[in-house]
């Protein structure tokens, strides 16, 4: 962060590279949202680093006028961990897809989350492998027919929010490409969280998996199915807010407010240290097919990895003084000859 706040336009964060996604791709919307947000943030643009793997989503860094690396498939969380640990003053973003993050990159993702490395992970979940032209992904629904699953996929998908919570993530949220206000708000919160922030963004791939999120984006369906999670407020949803979420000894359940009364509804609090409640909320939907929670599931304070390492270095120097190489190579005892 800088002392003299700079003000930017979106255009300051637009690189000279022609944006090359398919016309109508959800990635365009997210790019605009992020560029607008970056212009608002109180961070010098040279302090931002975007790291991505491979995939359509992973093209993102090319289009953002900051530092960036378009690396290799699945490894962005590891590379970003190196950047953020080496220099805690940087704002490090990871842009990744459902295949990049959850298939080949699954291990680096869960370890970056448990270590609480100070990186902002934006997972563009389109439930398909876009760049390789339409194979099913770890978030594709069972039975999905694709080139590699002509008779339907038999793989149970991950629930990315559940997986992140199981991996000790300190900030976990979900938003939707088309809902620009909501996604801007969520991504800003991720930015403000010091530590690993995991944001699942439902992103429409209109070429290989069009309308996968229609239940949450369709004109009619959206009211019925979007469950907004708002801190401090009872969870209600539905066209006329007629539904709500209750938390009981069997987890989270959807109830008719008329039946149970407002008081019985669960009041959302992403800051409870314990992730069980957030996890229960994540199970309200197995995917974007019916009522699905949108918003911040979990947001708890915890030392960020790079900061902790920094501290260990400073402590060591305070304790032993700055390293002296001449002493070090003599530390095992010496003798003189000649």
């Amino acid at each position, binding site marked *: 962060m800088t002392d003299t706040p700079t003000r930017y336009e979106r255009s300051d964060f637009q*690189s000279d*590279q022609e944006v090359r996604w398919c016309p109508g791709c959800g990635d365009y919307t997210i790019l605009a949202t992020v560029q607008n947000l970056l212009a608002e943030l109180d961070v*010098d*643009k*040279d*302090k*931002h*680093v975007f*790291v991505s793997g*491979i995939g359509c989503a992973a093209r993102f*860094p*090319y289009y953002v*006028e*900051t*530092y*960036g*690396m*378009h*690396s*290799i498939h699945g*490894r962005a969380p*590891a*590379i*970003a*961990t*190196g*950047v*953020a*640990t*080496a*220099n805690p*003053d*940087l704002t490090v973003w990871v842009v990744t897809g459902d295949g990049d993050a959850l298939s080949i990159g699954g*291990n*680096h993702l869960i*370890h970056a989350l448990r270590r609480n490395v100070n990186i902002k992970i934006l997972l563009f979940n389109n439930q398909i492998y876009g760049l390789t032209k339409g194979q099913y992904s770890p978030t594709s629904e069972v039975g999905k027919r694709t080139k590699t699953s002509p008779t339907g996929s038999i793989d149970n998908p991950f629930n990315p929010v559940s997986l992140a919570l199981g991996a000790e993530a300190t900030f976990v949220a979900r938003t939707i490409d088309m809902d620009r206000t909501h996604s801007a708000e969520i991504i800003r919160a991720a930015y403000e969280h010091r530590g690993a922030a995991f944001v699942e963004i439902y992103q429409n791939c209109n070429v290989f998996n069009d309308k996968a999120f229609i239940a949450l984006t369709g004109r009619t369906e959206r009211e019925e199915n979007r469950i907004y999670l708002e801190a401090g407020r009872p969870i209600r949803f539905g066209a006329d807010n007629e539904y709500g979420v209750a938390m009981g000894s069997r987890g989270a359940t959807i109830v008719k407010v008329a039946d149970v009364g407002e008081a019985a509804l669960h009041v959302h609090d992403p800051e409870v240290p314990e992730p069980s409640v957030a996890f229960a909320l994540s199970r309200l939907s197995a995917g974007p097919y019916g009522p699905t929670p949108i918003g911040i599931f979990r947001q708890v304070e915890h030392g960020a990895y790079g900061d902790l*390492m920094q501290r*260990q*270095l400073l*402590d*060591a*120097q305070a*304790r*032993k*003084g*700055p*390293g002296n*190489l*001449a002493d*070090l*190579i*003599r530390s*095992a*005892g*010496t*003798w*003189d*000859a*000649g």
Partner: protein
Amino acid sequence: MADQTMTVPQDREALDRVVIRFAGDSGDGMQLVGSRFTAASALFGNDLATLPNFPAEIRAPQGTLPGVSSFQVHIADWDILTPGDNPDVLVAMNPAALKANIGDLRGGGLLLVNTDSFEERNFAKAGYDTDPLEDGSLEGYHVLKAPMEELTKLAVADTGVKGRATLRSKNFFALGLVSWMFNRPTQPVIDWVERKFGPDEPVAKANIAAFRAGYNFGITTEEFHHTYEIEPATLPPGTYTNVTGNQALAWGFIAGAQSVKLPLFYGSYPITPASSILEELARHKNFGVRTFQAEDEIAAIGIALGAAFAGHLGVTGTSGPGVALKGETIALAFQTEIPLIIVNVQRAGPSTGMPTKVEQADLLQALYGRHGEAPLPVVSVTSPSDAFDTAIEACRIAVKYMTPVVLLSDGYIANSSEPWALPDVEALPDHSIPFATSSNTDNGFLPYLRDPETLRRPWAIPGTPGLEHRVGGLEHEAETGNVSYDPRNHEAMTIVREEKLRRIALDIAPAEVHNGDGADMVVVGWGSTFGAIRAGVNNAARGGVMAAHIHLRHLNPLPPNLGELLAAYDKVLVPELNRGQLTKMLRAEYLVDAIPYPKIQGLPFKAAEIAAKIVELAE
């Protein structure tokens, strides 16, 4: 050197060299007494070389052959090159240790046994049907016996150590006895024990008591009337310490980071025999060293690469199996042209192989273990102390040319030690190159605009205003670095990345010939075989068979003068701890009929093997 060994002992004999091997159960603390004996000898001023030999990674049951641990030390009053081929003295703490090592003891050698452990139960475990001390199988050796456990128990009686624990000090008894035989100073051992355990601790008292008891046992016992002298070596003047390869490598990276003026970032995942580099560096946070124990080798290099992108000196260390996992990320570092050092402490493969044993079979992997055309500088370590210099050289090349560099060491270098004349680290060379801080053209910053001489691209790190740019693994346009599928550009970029190696070739030390005149054969080696080859060449020369020796630190690029040098000899012999990998390279590069001398037993070469091969080839 096998010729100049001890004859039947008489009182107070002067020796110019001796090779001693301490062998016992992995629980017996042989590594400890070995290194103490070494330290004392070092302080006494002998030249020396050591070779520890651990059991395989898993613990084996006590008293069995797989459980045997040994430590060999070669001390001399002159400049030596190897830990010695065959020990002159063997200390065997139990039957298994005897069985596993007696084969190496030279004929007429001195065998010192702990008789207390020579009992039925242990014979069985070691696979002896009869008592080797009785069945005459040890004729031809000079056997000395001591009931070490018994005597140790007595010695430690009133130190406060009780029960089975009393036996733990028996290794110090052995150390005391051997120290007396070879007139080692006792004080260094006593000081060390007190430093290590605290002067008033029972265990310290017990170890010192056992040590003294062993020493005195030598003085008082008829059988041990005979002792040996080894004068201090006349090493080149200087201050020395005794250092292992992994220690020197870790220190070398700290020094290298200082020489390029960058903070050191070491990303690694534990693996034998590389783990101790991570462990050593983790202890020096006050040097500003960041160590990161990653979830796997792919993450380790990814994290090191990310740190390098952010402006640190990124280093990642592992062994062969780990390198096999890093190939894709090495190619990314190559393609993005970010400095990064990949350390491979080679072990016997393939697959898990023999993790605690030495091998040099990852050379071609270092050169070609990636997809696409991705030529990288490869440097190798030739001895424990040389690891320090090689690390600095790797840092220099990586930063000066903006390229990943592979550094090859091995399990032998990693764990063995030698005296090291301490360099003046106040006067480290300055290999630093400033980061880019402003545009390199009037119309903006071009991340792939190269230095015409080195072909280096500028290094602009995140946090530098105005130089924002993107790098990536896709092929990119010269200068701008924008993604490009242009056929000509791809060819041009491929060639310029390759050309970098040719520029580096002009910037490295030329190959040097040892013992060149009058020889019509040259022995070419690389890495840890240096000592054995040099000693072998010297032995052969003493025997009147001349062979030159060229030892390579740089394996890619090869020194530009190498082809010319090789052309001067009729025969080119290439001893390697693999099936002939450098041999292949030399044949392809220079079309010389290089003759492989492969050894792939998980053991280093013996000087005698090299000498014999030279003689054989000369005939």
